């Protein structure tokens, strides 16, 4: 579904990515682990195209999309749940979700997708007329995920979706992620600080450090390696 080859990018004089290779297979949850500042978020933004690629390629559905503009990639079904939510706080929940269906193709499927989001997060249906900024942190995260689902995606990249949430809500978010894979059939690329929960949910894991991939494998393999856990994951 998605393949990243020797990707290099950064901000101004600072290079962040030093050629990581990753592959995300259709219908799986691929988890990207690593300490703060490893370049995980930058990798996601470079895949989306809002950080410019300097070297390497991004292939999505067998197509080279390396230099495609972000809004075109959204058209192709690449969605993003950014770190820190980035909701439209002064818009209502409903308006936030409709913004997710901004692209024409997504707009055509607005009603079905809205129904799916409301069935996944019934609380959002109740609160649809409420201003998003007035919701609790967990509910705001639901809006962010819902908004991404409204773009009619095939692949969702999620950046720290459980950040700042209470343990019970973290569990719920992870359940939602697995539900999105099982019931909606989405492919998910997950960036998480919460290594333990992430290892449980993932089908395949990449460990990133200082802008490149240091280890990869099935969650079982990563869990079995004390070296990796100690060096990069703090487990």
């Amino acid at each position, binding site marked *: 579904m998605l393949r990243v080859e020797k990707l290099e990018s950064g901000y101004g004089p600072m290079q962040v990515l030093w050629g990581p290779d990753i592959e995300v297979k259709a219908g799986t949850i691929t988890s990207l682990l690593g300490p703060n500042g490893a370049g995980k978020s930058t990798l996601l933004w470079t895949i989306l195209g809002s950080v*410019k690629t300097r070297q390497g390629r991004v292939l999505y559905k067998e197509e080279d999309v390396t230099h495609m503009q*972000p809004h075109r990639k*959204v058209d192709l079904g690449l969605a993003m749940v950014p770190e820190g939510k*980035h*909701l439209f*706080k002064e818009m209502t929940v409903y308006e936030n979700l*409709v913004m*997710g269906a901004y692209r024409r193709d997504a707009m055509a499927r607005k009603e079905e997708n809205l129904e799916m989001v409301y069935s996944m997060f019934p609380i959002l249906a109740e609160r649809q007329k409420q201003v998003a900024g007035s919701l609790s942190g967990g509910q705001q995260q639901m809006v962010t995920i819902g908004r991404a689902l409204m773009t009619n995606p095939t692949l969702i990249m999620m950046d720290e979706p459980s950040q700042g949430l209470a343990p019970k809500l973290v569990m719920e978010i992870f359940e939602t992620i697995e539900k999105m894979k099982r019931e909606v059939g989405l492919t998910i690329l997950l960036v998480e600080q919460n290594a333990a929960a992430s290892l449980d949910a993932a089908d395949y894991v990449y460990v990133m450090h200082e802008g490149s991939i240091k280890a990869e494998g099935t969650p079982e393999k990563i869990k079995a390696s004390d070296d990796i856990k100690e060096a990069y994951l703090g487990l």
Partner: protein
Amino acid sequence: MIFEQLAGNLVQGLVLGAVYGMATMGLSLIFGVLQIVNVGHGAFIMVGAFTALMMFQALGIPPVIALPAALILGMLLGMVIYYAAVKPLVSPSGSGIRKPSGRDAGIAVAIFISLMVVMRFLSGYYKLHTAFSIFVGLLFLYGLLLYVYGGRRQEKAAELATLLVTFAFGVILEEFVKQLFTSEARGYNWDIGKLDIGITVLPYTKLLAALGSVSIAVILYLWFNKTRAGMAMRSVVEDSVGARVCGVNVDWQYALSFSLGIGLTVTSGVLLTMFIPVGINPYMGGPYTLKAFVIAVLGGLASPYGAFFGGLVFGLIENGSYTLFAVIPGVEPFALTRFFSFLILLVILLIRPTGLLRAK
């Protein structure tokens, strides 16, 4: 007697305030989307005033009909300025966070400030040695800018650069218009009768100007809240990262909002001449820039409708205080009114820095 006069002037103030409000919406829109303070704001009002004047005098087209022409002219002008000077300073990258380079900022400042000095010199506004010393001074400023901010604090450098560049563009426009029309103050006379409401007399042109302002504000409100294109721009104001992941072309929205902001400002210049059809000259924009800043702060800076209501409040304060100051013997009411406006600005900034009409 004084109360009747006050009431009459307040009505005038409300009508003028509507136009003031409209004249600030463009400033607020640009600030809301791009976080740029358009220091050359008044020059664009001046362009609108000349548009109205020329269309009326040369072609006999009444100012009301000139409104769409002014909007289009302003939007084109805005697009040109955005791509020539503003884009390198605000170009969004990363997760939507602006990371312009200090070098781009420096180059933009150097080019447009030089152009500005050359234009001022050509028009005779500066003598040769003045032009030279200003130029050297600005080059020094540019060097300082690069030195202090060029390395790590590039965003600061770009922020400063946007102020200098919009200022330079204002001056360039003034001098350009002066080359075309000289600095003589002009006026036009469009008489379509007046309305006597007892306490004061309102020419229909003034009423039309206010009506036009209110209509434009309402249209803008509906556009922002009910249309797909308007929602896209609003989403960029609220959260450009969020807008990007929804598939909004953020770079284009930046260009479009700058262009629309300038378009609205030029349009407001036409409306202002309907209120005050005299004193149209290349340097007329200055006082309007200052007033627009006060109004924008009154209304909460980043909100175009806030700005509109800020304008109404400002119109009332200006005319009301003028009437009251005029009663005090030995006081020059015009100067004191101006002073009073800025006193209000100061007080608001002290007690409510987010603006008077802004929730939060």
